[in-house]
């Protein structure tokens, strides 16, 4: 029997700390392999923000993910699948929840990464724990650039690439740009990329404001833009912040006077603005009314509308396609071993003959043509806001060059 008063050597604080540190270091160094039993479901983690201004986008990402699972009757290779959804409250919180998914929920892979700041933290944890992750939304260049790693895949086109795709269309409006970008990874990435492209085109910077995230009032920024009289406002504010900006842009009488351009937006950002105030030209990965959508995506749109009573936003497709790629890869791998899943993802193929897509083996970046969309002059349907102006690049053969080589993007991926 344990006797607290006995003189047996006590477990000292230093010993306890050293032991804890050793255990922690051991768990970080060892590759993470799920120890799921044969009769247990395959658990897949969903790491997406549940609150905050990004939540409108993550709702659609999650809907798309669940629909992809429903299409397979909730199974991979005949085994039931359980999605475990945890929050991304902050980069630190996201890392903690990543570890929780890996070590407590014993997931075999993780889908998620809504905000770039969180995704950058998560991919470092994926590399440490050697657990596959497919990032479905974050667009910061470094994710598949200098921070790339063997276990992280990313769907969204990096900011720098979207900037290269979009710059010619923004330059059509003029060469005097006003930058309004969020003061965190995503906005700073946009700011840097477009500054370089504008300089190459011989343009001038009319103003350059970095905006704190979740700014509720843009009127003072808009007054500065009004005073500077640029040809274009080049935005880099995310999600709900963009909606707020556009509402106030209209309120201050600026809609239609100076064009607003931004990359990597979500449909929900514009749907939240309303027909009266919506404006702008943007890049998008997918649009539910794009006439070029292949039959399986048309079916996805119909299924989504039947299930949720409204059309899928681009984010729903992003959740759906990343989930499909992971589910199909796990099935093909016939294994829960991380490296087997990674290899299957590297060899996964999707899309149509006109618009094929894949994860590039060298940096795990999804190669996909982007759309340039413009808000219609007159909106008569509460969901149908965009006209597709272009598909970039026109030729599939140009994709690789447009995305830049992994070496040029700073990716040096280790083999394990």
């Amino acid at each position, binding site marked *: 029997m344990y006797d607290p008063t006995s003189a047996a050597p006590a477990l000292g604080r230093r010993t306890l700390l050293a032991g804890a540190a050793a255990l922690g270091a051991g768990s970080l160094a060892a590759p993470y392999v799920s120890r799921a039993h044969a009769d247990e479901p395959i658990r897949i983690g969903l790491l997406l923000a549940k*609150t*905050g*201004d990004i*939540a*409108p986008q*993550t*709702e*659609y990402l999650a809907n798309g993910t669940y629909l992809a699972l429903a299409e397979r009757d909730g199974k991979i290779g005949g085994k039931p699948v359980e999605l475990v959804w945890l929050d991304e409250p902050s980069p630190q919180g996201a890392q903690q929840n990543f570890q929780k998914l890996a070590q407590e929920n014993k997931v075999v892979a993780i889908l998620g990464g809504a905000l770039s700041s969180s995704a950058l933290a998560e991919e470092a944890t994926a590399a440490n724990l050697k657990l596959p992750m497919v990032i479905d939304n974050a667009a910061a260049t470094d994710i598949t650039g200098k921070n790339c790693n063997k276990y992280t895949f990313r769907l969204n086109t990096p900011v720098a690439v979207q900037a290269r795709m979009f710059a010619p269309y923004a330059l059509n409006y003029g060469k005097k740009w006003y930058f309004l970008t969020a*003061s965190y990874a995503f906005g700073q990435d946009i700011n840097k990329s477009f500054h370089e492209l504008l300089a190459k085109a011989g343009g001038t910077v009319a103003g350059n*404001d*970095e*905006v*704190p*995230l*979740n*700014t*509720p*009032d843009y*009127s*003072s*920024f808009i*007054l*500065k833009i*009004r*005073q500077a009289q640029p040809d274009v406002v080049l935005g880099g504010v995310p999600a*709900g*912040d963009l*909606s*707020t900006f556009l*509402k*106030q842009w*209209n*309120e*201050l*009488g600026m809609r239609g006077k100076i064009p607003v351009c931004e990359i990597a937006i979500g449909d*929900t*950002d514009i*749907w*939240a*603005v*309303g*027909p*009266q*105030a919506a404006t702008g030209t943007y890049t998008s990965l997918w649009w539910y009314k794009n006439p070029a959508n292949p039959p399986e995506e048309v079916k996805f749109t119909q299924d989504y509308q039947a299930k949720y009573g409204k059309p899928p936003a681009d984010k729903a497709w992003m959740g759906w396609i990343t989930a499909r790629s992971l589910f199909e890869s796990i099935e093909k791998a016939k294994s829960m071993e991380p490296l087997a899943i990674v290899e299957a993802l590297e060899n996964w193929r999707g899309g149509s003959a006109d618009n094929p897509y894949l994860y590039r083996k060298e940096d795990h970046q999804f190669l996909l043509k982007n759309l340039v969309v413009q808000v219609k002059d007159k909106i008569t349907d509460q969901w149908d806001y965009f006209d597709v102006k272009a598909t970039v690049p026109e030729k599939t053969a140009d994709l690789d060059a447009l995305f830049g080589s992994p070496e040029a993007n700073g990716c040096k991926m280790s083999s394990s």
Partner: protein
Amino acid sequence: MLDLILSQVANGLVLGGLYVLIAIGLSIIFGLLGIVNFAHGAFFAIGAYFALTLYNVAGWWAVIFAPILVGALGMVVERVLIHRLYDKEPLVSLIVTFALALMIEATIRLIWGGIGLPFNPPPLFAGFFIWGPVLITKYRTAVFMTTVLLLIGLWAFMRYTPFGRILRAGSRDPEMVGLLGINLPVLLTAVFGLGCAIAGIAGVLAAPLWTIIPSMSAGAIMPAFVVVTIGGLGSFPGAVIAGLLVGIVTTLTIQFWPEASGAVMYVFMALILLVRPRGLLGERWERFE
């Protein structure tokens, strides 16, 4: 440059007016009930959502009905939950109302969904006024005027009506008021409802300017706390002065150092508290000494 500074100061006053409107309900609830209501931002968000929903049924009458409903909801919350906190430590009310805020946000998400919903100013208030370098939209002018009228009405109500006098007395010495035969608990319920209704008014008026999403409460609660703290906890005129100052400081920071515009109100609060720990017009508040 002087033109732009003048324009930003004017814009700051209007923005400050909105901050005052958000903060004043919080100040009333703290000043009269001693409750640190962290759920104030959530009632603000409910105001916006009620306005949006009622607008589809009753048109612009929603602007009146929505705050009334928020006030009624606040009274129910007071009867069910808040009245149990009056004799507790201030920290308890802070924690309980924080939990309430999370619960309300989750409920909003459940009912209205997580995506942003469109709502724009009425056509009557489309356009703007230009006076020299100053540009102010008609809608923001209307919001500012509403705030001024509301503040005058509240001040007169507290100052000159028997109800207001009872409330002020009851907030300092509830036992004595009870001994005089006055049913104070009912009055306290009404005060909490009033504070929530004012948060609802702020939510209704901010709905055409801000994005209506469940997390919009977060954008309201922090400025409200900063304004109330700078003005002095529970001080009505203090909240007004502080709100206007915070608005002006924020807009001028946007002009000269935009990256710092989100943090400047907190720095400003720290500086004020260094000089005046009770805030600009804060009084000695026995319960918290």
